């Protein structure tokens, strides 16, 4: 319900709305409206109140909230439970804390700010307050899907969700970076653990939303980009998050059905890698060759310059075009 009240306040940004007006639109009495306003303030919204004029919302910055995300989400598995933190060390860690608890399958954890977000190999994933969508999704007792598929699937979902929610064209860089205008827009890291109740995964995703170029760390600045740099329209992170959860749900709600061919085709449609000649480093050795295909399970299929065909796992640390 706080969602609906917030929608009205946002539509009338910087304008006074009296309690009577709000009561006319919402099925709430005056004390309930005051209570919801307090909840929104706790979430970080700046709402001014006046005994005569009522309330007005300052600023257009959006805040994530579980109510807003859960409202009309309609997913079967992913996002049935949504937790939003103003600040946490790592959304992946929070998701793992619930991995042993019953009923947390599909849990979505979001944070406005992450202190120790992990990228691959302990690389720090930077995220200042309210600038990103930082989302971790927990899969409990998942035995149908191969872990390698999750990396490709998450990248595809992020790329498609961004494009549908914002109209910004996205591509995928092998194996798990989502790119726009040749720069990194989003990153993905999947973790797997064998727990008592079965194999569990946490898919961690980070999408740059509101960063200005100078706000990226100097070492990433030349290859990072955010959504707000690509569009004039205000980014609605709640809408983007919902879109992403629904995309993930389409693939993960029922993993009994084999859809790896479909994943392979849709993934390849967003990735320019097949047919390209590239160099990559595997186990300290450099290999050069032409990409023949991408296998959902094994990785890159490369025809090396000496004619030998070899498969390279996605952990192959660096590729050069």
């Amino acid at each position, binding site marked *: 319900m706080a969602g609906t009240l917030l929608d009205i306040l946002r539509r009338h940004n910087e304008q006074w709305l009296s309690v009577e007006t709000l009561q006319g639109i919402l099925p709430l009495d005056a004390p309930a409206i005051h209570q919801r306003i307090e909840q929104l303030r706790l979430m970080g919204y700046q709402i001014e109140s006046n005994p005569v004029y009522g309330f007005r919302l300052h600023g257009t910055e959006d805040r994530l909230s579980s109510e807003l995300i859960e409202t009309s989400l309609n997913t079967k598995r992913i996002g049935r439970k949504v937790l939003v933190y103003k600040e946490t060390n790592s959304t992946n860690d929070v998701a793992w804390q619930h991995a042993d608890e019953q009923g947390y399958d599909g849990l979505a954890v979001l944070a406005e700010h992450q202190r120790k977000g992990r990228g691959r190999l302990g690389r720090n994933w930077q995220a200042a307050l309210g600038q990103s969508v930082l989302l971790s999704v927990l899969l409990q007792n998942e035995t149908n*899907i191969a872990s390698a598929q999750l*990396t490709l699937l998450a990248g595809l979902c992020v790329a498609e969700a961004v494009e549908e929610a914002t109209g910004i064209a996205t591509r995928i860089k092998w194996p798990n970076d989502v790119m726009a205008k040749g720069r990194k827009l989003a990153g993905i890291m999947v973790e797997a653990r064998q727990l008592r109740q079965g194999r569990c995964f946490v898919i961690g995703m980070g999408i740059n939303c509101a960063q200005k170029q100078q706000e990226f760390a100097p070492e990433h600045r030349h290859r990072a980009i955010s959504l707000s740099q690509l569009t004039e329209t205000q980014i609605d992170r709640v809408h983007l998050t919902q879109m992403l959860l629904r995309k993930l749900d389409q693939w993960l709600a029922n993993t009994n059905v*084999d859809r790896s061919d479909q994943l392979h085709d849709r993934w390849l449609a967003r990735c320019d890698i097949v047919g390209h000649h590239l160099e990559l480093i595997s186990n300290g050795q450099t290999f050069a060759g032409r990409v023949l295909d991408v296998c959902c399970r094994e990785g890159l299929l490369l025809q090396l310059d000496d004619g030998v065909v070899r498969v390279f796992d996605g952990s192959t640390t660096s590729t050069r075009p």
Partner: protein
Amino acid sequence: MDVDKIKELIELMKTNDLNELKIKDGETRILLRRGAKGNPQIIQMPHQPLTAPMPAPAAAPAAPAPVADENAGLIEITSPMVGSFYAAPSPNAESFVKVGDHVDTDTVVCIVEAMKVMNEVKSEVKGTIKKILASNGQAVEFGTALYLVEPD
């Protein structure tokens, strides 16, 4: 395909001065190719590269196998998959386990990264770490021995 069979094939290539040998044996396909110095390279082909089948459930860690000779009585912790071995959660962090550490069946001993998925590997055996066999960042195969453990 076992190692002896491959050795036999290598000998066959040498005696007949063959540069390339492709073998298909059921699900297994192997390409042997002699490099510049005449040393054969072994390339394990994927099963069905162009039409990826629905992958089987992620493999459970292989059952600990007993090890012979000087390591008698020690049990191997092996890699459950093909990937890169990491002894620590991040480059500057401390290793999950050191030689002399006591491990329980569910102690996390390392991470094997495959297709950008960080897979925690558990000890599966109760005992004391005697040897660390893999080096940080090393590419490991399914069944590669990573640690030797003296069971309790």
